[in-house]
C-alpha cells in the first residue's frame, strides 16, 4: 500500500498546480452549482468541511493519531462564534478569533492529556473527551441553549479597512469561506511539507523510533492536535455563520465519525488532497443518493465498509494507482521506509 510519504512533494513551493486548479474551481463554483442543478448553500457546506477535514488529516493521515471526537472542536468553534456575536460584539474578525482561540484552548488542554497515549488508548480517550464536550453542550442550557441550540447568530459584515461587504447572501458567504479555505490549504500544505511535517510522518511510521532519534514526540503530538482543533474551530465559526445557529448535534460521536469516514473514503491516509475528495464525495452522495432513497446513509455506510475492506487508501489512492499503472514499464522499487512501516 502506498502512503503519504511516497508521494513526491516539492517542499519549496508555496503555491502548487492543484491549488491553482482548486482556486479556479472555487471561483467558478457559484456558476457551476446551479448549472448541474445544485444550490449555493452546498458550496458553503463543502468549503467548511474541507477546511475541517484538511486540519483533521494533519492529525489523522500525517501523524497517524486517530481522533474520534473531533466534532467537539467544530462545535466549540460554532458556539464561541455565536456567543461572541451575542454577548461581546457583532464582529466578524472578533468572532473568528474567539472561535479559533476557544477551540484551540480546549484542544490544547485535551491534547496535553492525550499526547502521552498511543494507539487505541489515544483513540478511545478522544471519544471520551469528545463526549464530555457534547454532553456539556447539551446540559449547559443557559449558555448553549441545550438541545435547541444557540439560535439567531448574525452574519456580521466583512470589514477590510474602509471596505465593508455584507455576507448575508449565500454567494458572498461562499466566497468568504472559499478565501479562508484557500488560506487553510496553503497553510496545511506548507506545514505538511516542512521539517515539522516530516517529524509527524516519522511518528506515524514508528513512534518509538522517532523518540529514540531524539524528538520529543509528545510535543509534536500535542502541537498537531492543538493546531487541528484550531482549524476545526475556524470551520465551526463558518458553520455558525452558514446555519446562523449552533447545535450540539455536530459534537456527537456520529458527526465526529463522519469526518473520519470522509477523510478515509477520500484517501487522507495517502494524499494531501484526499480529504477534499472525501468531503465532495460525501456531499454528492448525500444529495444524489438522498434524492433516490430515504436510507441513503445505509448505502453510504456500505460504501464506506467496502472501502475499508478493499481500498483503505481511498479515492486518492485509487487515482494514484491508476496513474501508476499507465506509464510505460518502469521497475519502481518500493521506497525503503514503506517496508518498515508495516
Amino acid at each position: 500500500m502506498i502512503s503519504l510519504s511516497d508521494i513526491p512533494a516539492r517542499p519549496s513551493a508555496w503555491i502548487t498546480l492543484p491549488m491553482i486548479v482548486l482556486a479556479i474551481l472555487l471561483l467558478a463554483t457559484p456558476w457551476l452549482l446551479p448549472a448541474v442543478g445544485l444550490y449555493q448553500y452546498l458550496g458553503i457546506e463543502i468549503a467548511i468541511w474541507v477546511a475541517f477535514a484538511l486540519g483533521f488529516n494533519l492529525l489523522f493521515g500525517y501523524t497517524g493519531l486517530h481522533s474520534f471526537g473531533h466534532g467537539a472542536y467544530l462545535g466549540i468553534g460554532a458556539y464561541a462564534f455565536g456567543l461572541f456575536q451575542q454577548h461581546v460584539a457583532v464582529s466578524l474578525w472578533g468572532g473568528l478569533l474567539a472561535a479559533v482561540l476557544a477551540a484551540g484552548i480546549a484542544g490544547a488542554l485535551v491534547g496535553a492529556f492525550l499526547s502521552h497515549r498511543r494507539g487505541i488508548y489515544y483513540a478511545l480517550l478522544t471519544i471520551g473527551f469528545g463526549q464530555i464536550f457534547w454532553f456539556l453542550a447539551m446540559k449547559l442550557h443557559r449558555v448553549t441553549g441545550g438541545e435547541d441550540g444557540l439560535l439567531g447568530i448574525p452574519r456580521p459584515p466583512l470589514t477590510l479597512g474602509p471596505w465593508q461587504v455584507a455576507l448575508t447572501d449565500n454567494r458572498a458567504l461562499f466566497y468568504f469561506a472559499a478565501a479562508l479555505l484557500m488560506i487553510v490549504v496553503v497553510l496545511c500544505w506548507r506545514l505538511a511539507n516542512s521539517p515539522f511535517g516530516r517529524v509527524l510522518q516519522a511518528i506515524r511510521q514508528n513512534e518509538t523510533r522517532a523518540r529514540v532519534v531524539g524528538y520529543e514526540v509528545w510535543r509534536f503530538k500535542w502541537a498537531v492536535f492543538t493546531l487541528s482543533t484550531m482549524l476545526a474551530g475556524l470551520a465551526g465559526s463558518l458553520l455558525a455563520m452558514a446555519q446562523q445557529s449552533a447545535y450540539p448535534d455536530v459534537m456527537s460521536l456520529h458527526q465526529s465519525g463522519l469526518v473520519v469516514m470522509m477523510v478515509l473514503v477520500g484517501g487522507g491516509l495517502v494524499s494531501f488532497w484526499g480529504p477534499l475528495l472525501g468531503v465532495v464525495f460525501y456531499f454528492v452522495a448525500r444529495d444524489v443518493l438522498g434524492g433516490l432513497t430515504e436510507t441513503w446513509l445505509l448505502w453510504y455506510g456500505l460504501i464506506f465498509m467496502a472501502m475499508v475492506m478493499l481500498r483503505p487508501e481511498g479515492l486518492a489512492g485509487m487515482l494514484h494507482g491508476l496513474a501508476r499503472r499507465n506509464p510505460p514499464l518502469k521497475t519502481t522499487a518500493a521506497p525503503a521506509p514503506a517496508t518498515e512501516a508495516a
Partner: protein
Amino acid sequence: MIDLLPHIINGLTLGLLFALIALGFTLIVGVMEVINLAHGSLFAIGAYFALTVIGGGWFAGTPFGAWWLSLPLGLRYVLALAIGPALAGLAGMLLELCLRATYGKPPLYGLLLTFGAALVIEELIRLVWGTGEQNLALPQAINGAFLLNDMIFSTYRFFAAGFSIAAILAVWLFLERTSAGAVIKAGAHDSEMVRALGYDLARLRLLVFGFGAALAGLAGVVMVPIWGLRPHVGVDIVIPAFLIIVIGGVGSFWGAVIAALLVGLAMGITGAYAAAWATMSMYLLLIAVLGFRSRGLLGRKSALEN
C-alpha cells in the same frame, strides 16, 4: 440529607448490567484485538428481535401471529431470550467475515469497519422497525416493584442483576474451566502457537466473535426494559461499554467487571444529587483512572497500543 442506600443499590444493579454488556466486548477485544464499535448495534439487534418475538411485529396481523400472541407472555419472553441473542450472534459472525480483510493491518481498520457497520445496522433498524421509541412487554412475574426496609425497588432490576451475575460466572467458568476456554485464551496470547498446535484459528475467531455478539444480544434483551429501545440505542450503549473496557484495562475480564460496578455506582450516587449529570460521572471516572493508570485498572500491554 438524601438517604444514599437505595441509590447505592440501584447503582450496583446498574453496574452489573453494564458488566453484562461489557462482557462480550472484552472477550472480543481480548481474543481478536478488535475494538468492536458495532457492539452496541449487536445489542440493539438482540433487543429488536426480542421485541418482534414478544410482540409479533410484522407477522402480528397474520393467522400465525394471532396464534403466536395467544401463547403465554412468559413463554414468548423465554423464547425471546434465546432467539434475540442467537440472531445477534449470527450478525456478529457476518461482521467477523467482513473483518477478515482487516487482519494484519493496524487496529484502526477494525475500528473503522465496525464503526461503518454500526451506521449500517442503525439504518437497517430504522428501515425494519421504524424510528420511534419502543417497549418490551414483560411477564407479570418479573414486573412491578417490591418493598424492602420501607424502600421501593423495581423487581425487574433485581431479576436483571441476578441474570447478569449468572452470566458473568458462566462466562468466567467457560474461559477458566473448559478446554475450549483455554484455547480461546491461548489464541489471545499467542495465535501463532495455537495455529501450530493444529487449531483452526479462523474458525476459533468466528466462534468467539459470534459468542461475544450473542452476549451483546443477550444484554440487549435483558437491559432494554430499563434502558429503552430506539434505533440509536446502539451508540448510546457502546459508549458506556467501551468506557468500562478502558477503565478496567483493555482485555481484562475482572477489570471490566470492577469498572462496570464502579461506573454503575458513580452514576447511582451522582443520580442522587444531580440526576441530569449522571452520565457525566462516567467520563470523569475515565479521566480520573487514566490520569493515574494509563492502561486502566488491570490492563496489560497489548498490540492495540501500536
